[in-house]
């Protein structure tokens, strides 16, 4: 109980800290909306007036992109990859090793705080208005909403584990050039964040299905727009749980290795 209380403090602190950096919230919202316009326009042009493609209606596709950009906003509100790398390079993270808490867990709880602030002050109001004024589809029954929120949350945790693991690789590499670009590529394409997996060429779809990234965007959004329904939902949630366990174990492994291998870079 005391443990949980301590981590909860990090959440509250991060929430309050976000309130101070209001310019950050504005700027993040601005670029989030620009990317929303960009991908909305791209999909409008791709459908080119067609009612449906590959069995997916245009309205459903547009909803897919809007929900995707919402989740993008949620996922980007946490500690970004370059920030973790910077903490490793400057040695800030080694100071945390001396403190009586678990570092990956502490950052996760801090992320909850900053995500909550960003959602309440920017994402939820803006996307509420978008759904009000645009011709989009909403889940009709309450269960779909619950499954979507659950699935999106699992996706958030998986993304956190993967991003943290990539960030911690800085411990071993120091110079990480291509590493982060591989991460960003996987996050944008293989996760289905901008193109749903059903439009992929067959072989690429298969690859993407066997990777954890689809859990972050593709599965929750497909539940939202009803492409995944009925018993398939349990299957999707099961896949996500599986990947959460795997990614968490990998994160643990890398973290244990990393914390035993603190390279001291000068004074």
């Amino acid at each position, binding site marked *: 109980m005391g443990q949980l209380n301590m981590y909860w403090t990090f959440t509250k602190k991060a929430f309050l800290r976000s309130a101070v950096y209001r*310019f*950050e919230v*504005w*700027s*993040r919202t*601005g*670029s989030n909306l*620009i*990317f929303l*316009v*960009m991908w909305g*326009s*791209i999909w*409008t*042009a*791709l459908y*080119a007036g067609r009612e449906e*493609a*590959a069995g997916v209606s245009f309205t459903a596709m547009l909803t897919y992109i809007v929900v995707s950009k919402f989740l993008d906003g949620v996922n980007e509100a946490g500690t970004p990859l370059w920030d973790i790398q910077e903490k490793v390079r400057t040695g800030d993270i080694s100071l945390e090793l001396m403190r009586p808490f678990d570092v990956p867990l502490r950052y996760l709880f801090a992320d909850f705080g900053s995500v909550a602030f960003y959602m309440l002050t920017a994402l939820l109001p803006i996307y509420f208005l978008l759904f009000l004024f645009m011709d989009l589809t909403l889940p009709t029954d309450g269960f779909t909403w619950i499954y979507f929120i659950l699935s999106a949350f699992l996706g958030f945790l998986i993304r956190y584990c993967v991003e943290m693991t990539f960030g911690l690789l800085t411990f071993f590499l120091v*110079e*990480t*050039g*291509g*590493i*982060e*670009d*591989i991460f*960003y*590529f996987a996050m*944008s*394409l293989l996760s289905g964040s*901008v*193109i749903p997996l059903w*439009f*992929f*060429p067959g072989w*690429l779809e298969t690859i993407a299905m066997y990777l954890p990234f689809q859990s972050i965007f593709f599965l929750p959004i497909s539940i939202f727009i009803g492409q995944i329904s009925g018993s398939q939902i349990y299957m999707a949630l099961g896949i996500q749980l599986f990947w959460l366990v795997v990614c968490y174990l990998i994160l643990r492994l890398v973290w244990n290795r990393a914390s035993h291998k603190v390279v001291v870079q000068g004074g």
Partner: protein
Amino acid sequence: MAIVKYINLYFKLIGAGVRAQLQYRFAFIMRIIGMLTAYTGTAVTMWVMLYQFQTLGDWNFYEMLFLLALSIVSWGFCIILFFHFRSLDTYILNGTFDRFLVRPINPFFHFMAMKFEVSSFGQFIFSVVVLTWVSFELQIDWTIGKAIFLLGVIVGGVLIQGGLLVIISALAFWTTKSEQFYWVAMYPARNLTYYPLMIYPKILQWVTAFVIPFGFVNYFPSTVILEKETPFFPDAIGYFSPLVGILFFMLSYFIWMQGLKRYKSTGS
């Protein structure tokens, strides 16, 4: 000749910078690989997107690659010359900007020559490979006229994107912020230009043509070279790229100099 003196000085100043960066050869290579991965990722995304749909607007995959490569080649030069402008706020906050003011050369020039980012080799490799490949696929007839036009477009593109970086850095004189403005405004705006502007809402097309003239970096010139139509705009608008670049850069230089007049040292 003042200009010759400045050109000589520029190469002396950046020569030192380049040697310093090449000291870290591994980092240098990793950064190039990183850039290549990132742009190849964008190209692969375009390919997957068009796998089912064939065209975006009336642009096919190779035409879109051309558009992308044209944007990236001028961005490569831009990184070399102007990319460090975005972090002017850090120099001001740390008080290290003052050293650019106490020497007997133009502070704008001095700040510009301070850094020479060598990692842009990734941009050049990517865009040269793609432009060559696409030229074969689309059977672009590279006459001397077209080649000269391409050079003019690249110069124009460098000046437009560089100009925007200069304006963004000038904001630091008024607001003590600049790096963030880059990530809010310029980074998303550059991403918009990877796709043909004709797909965006009209208001956005207007902005990218006449306010932040990013349309002249790659979209308008590409329609000239690939002989494509530009809905809502006159067909020959692409020919104005170099001119727009020169005018926009002059404007941004003027803004930067105005900002400099306001500058007061933090005194720390």
